[in-house]
């Protein structure tokens, strides 16, 4: 149980310490240290996987998520150190809020990790709620009109979503009770899955509708997406990175679990068409919305909706290829999007604005930032040599052979999104220099690390990783 202790305990302990610390340098370092311990423990899960019980569970599926989550959390904490330092200098954050920020960061990490390792559909719900509430706090941390509005919106929509998810969870329990009996057994993944064949399919269908809309709100699927762009745009950028890179995944993870459950129950509705519909709606909607964005962070938030649409679509198509592509796309999106947010965060700091119209010629004034942004956008747009290309390749080709019309819609969405992203990034990165040209004190390491991983994944996927993904893809049905 030691690695799990690290994964869960480090953030919890970190949160406790950080709530007490006040110095910026020290707390930033503690933040990084706690995140690192969590990440290292997550890596240990490979070698020492605990058996798990009724409460906690580590299996092939969630290890992917845990490692990814702790890794992005770790890199984000490094980015956060330099980002927050700048915010302190400019006075946007006061030291008091800083303490709050760091503690909340670790609470959020704890919530997410707990959601990922829990073997209990009730516990996962609690953990997601915890992660949501802590991010709500951080979104509103700047206390501007816009930030408060974003946080409020996030809170209301998130709460309603989580309420629906809870209702769905109860229905799942109800469906399970006649078969597995009441008590903790009726809420444990492993038990549920083992007996899913005997559940009442009709009840499970209703439950899935609620879970889809509930956790789908957290995933950011249209039409439940409304909180996502504003929360990304108005909060501190590390939070945007974590929201896009992690929180969406955690909700997605929950959704996937229930999808597997439903798929294991013969006679239930196929979850595929629902996921495909929501995925396509999100993709097309978000890609069209990208065109009118004036705020660069909000634009990339819409891009996250778009990608969540693709991922959900891929899982909806299912099959070994579809699931593999979905998993890969999810990992790649997390890494790429957080790298983009790292870059955008620094860009917004040096240009002292988030408005796209007030930035320009970035490759000339800040070559490293500018080119990283371009590389990130190229990667997120699904161009090689980056990993997203691989997954989109698989999604599109495997879909077209089975359902040509859907693939055409998918391709349409991808093209529209590419058009918008390219249009905006061209105006930010090229042309005459607009906005301040003062050098930035950015920490490039996290950004480069993410982009390098995405690049490597685009060219070469290690065989063990692939075998593992394939195994998981089979699990996902």
């Amino acid at each position, binding site marked *: 149980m030691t690695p799990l202790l690290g994964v869960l305990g480090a953030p919890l302990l970190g949160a406790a310490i950080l709530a007490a610390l006040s110095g910026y340098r020290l707390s930033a370092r503690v933040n990084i240290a706690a995140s690192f311990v969590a990440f290292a423990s997550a890596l240990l899960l490979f070698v020492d996987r605990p058996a798990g019980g009724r409460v906690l569970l580590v299996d092939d599926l969630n290890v992917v998520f845990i490692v990814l989550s702790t890794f992005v959390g770790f890199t984000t904490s490094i980015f956060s150190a330099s980002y927050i330092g700048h915010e302190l200098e400019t006075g946007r954050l006061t030291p008091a809020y800083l303490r709050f920020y760091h503690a909340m960061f670790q609470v959020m990490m704890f919530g997410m990790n707990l959601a990922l390792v829990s073997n209990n559909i009730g516990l996962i719900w609690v953990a997601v709620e915890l992660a949501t509430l802590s991010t709500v706090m951080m979104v509103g941390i700047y206390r501007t009109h816009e930030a408060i509005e974003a946080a409020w919106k996030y*809170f209301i929509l998130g709460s309603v979503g989580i309420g629906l998810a809870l209702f769905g969870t109860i229905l799942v329990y109800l469906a399970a009770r006649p078969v597995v009996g009441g008590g903790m057994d009726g809420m444990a993944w492993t038990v549920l899955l083992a007996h899913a064949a005997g559940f009442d399919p009709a009840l499970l269908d209703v439950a899935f509708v609620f879970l889809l809309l509930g956790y789908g709100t957290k995933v950011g699927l249209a039409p439940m997406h409304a909180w996502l762009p504003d929360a990304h745009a108005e909060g501190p950028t590390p939070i945007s990175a974590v929201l896009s890179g992690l929180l969406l995944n955690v909700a997605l993870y929950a959704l996937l679990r229930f999808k597997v459950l439903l798929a294991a129950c013969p006679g239930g509705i196929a979850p595929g068409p629902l996921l495909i519909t929501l995925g396509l709606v999100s993709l097309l909607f978000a890609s069209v919305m990208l065109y009118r964005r004036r*705020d660069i962070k909000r634009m990339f938030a819409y891009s996250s909706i778009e990608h969540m649409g693709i991922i959900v679509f891929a899982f909806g198509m299912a099959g070994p290829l579809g699931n593999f592509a979905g998993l890969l796309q999810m990992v790649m999106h997390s890494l790429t999007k957080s790298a983009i947010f790292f870059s955008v965060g620094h860009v917004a700091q040096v240009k002292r604005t988030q408005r796209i119209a007030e930035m320009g010629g970035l490759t000339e004034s800040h070559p490293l930032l500018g080119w990283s942004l371009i590389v990130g956008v190229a990667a997120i747009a699904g161009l090689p040599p980056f990993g997203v290309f691989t997954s989109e390749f698989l999604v599109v080709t495997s879909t077209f052979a089975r359902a040509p019309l859907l693939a055409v819609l998918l391709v349409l969405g991808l093209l529209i999104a590419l058009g918008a992203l390219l249009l905006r990034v061209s105006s930010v990165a090229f042309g005459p220099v607009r906005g301040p040209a003062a050098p930035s004190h950015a920490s490039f390491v996290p950004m480069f690390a993410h982009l390098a991983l995405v690049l490597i994944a685009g060219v070469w996927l290690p065989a063990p990783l692939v075998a593992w993904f394939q195994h998981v893809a089979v699990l996902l049905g």
Partner: protein
Amino acid sequence: MSTFSIDVANTLAGFLVLASFLMLYQVRLPALLNMLGLHAFILAMAVAWQAYAQGAPELYVTALIALVFKAGVIPVALQRMVVRLGIHRELEAVTGIGLTMLAGIGLVALSLEVMLPVTAHADPLTREYIALALSVVLLGLLMMVTRRNAVSQVAAFLSMENGIDLAAAAAQGMPLVVEISIAFSVLIAFLVIGVFLFRIRERFDTVDVRALDEFRGERR
């Protein structure tokens, strides 16, 4: 299980739906908050009856939490807040009350239509409860959609939570973990709401969500 206890349970659940309708019907904030208290009170009764009928003592705890916290603390706190904010005047619904009520009836019909067939194999004690709980949830959502004031939205949200609570109580043998977590989350939720309302009070002169909307991020 006696028919009597099922009848009582169903009657209580039906009362809860009725309370939801009453909330939907209320156009004044203080009255609405009173109704919220009533709503939670009925919930507590219903849960307690379930505890008795199922022979599940832990549900009494849940009922107690509902009684003390939801029916007592929260409505009172919200009443105070309303008074402090000076908005204990009439509030308007977006659509006509009649239309809203009609929509609510439609929602109840829908939830019965959806839930009754699928719970055919379930315990009769559970069956009606779940269907009515769904009605309460949907009515709560409808209310959130039709109300503009932040406080009434919070009230609507809580009524929705009550519906979920009802469903949880009806799910026999559901571990206490859930109830506690529900209670905790409601507490946290309320804290957050409080913080927000405070902030909103600090920044804006009204808690009307419309005022917030004036500051949407991308308006020129």
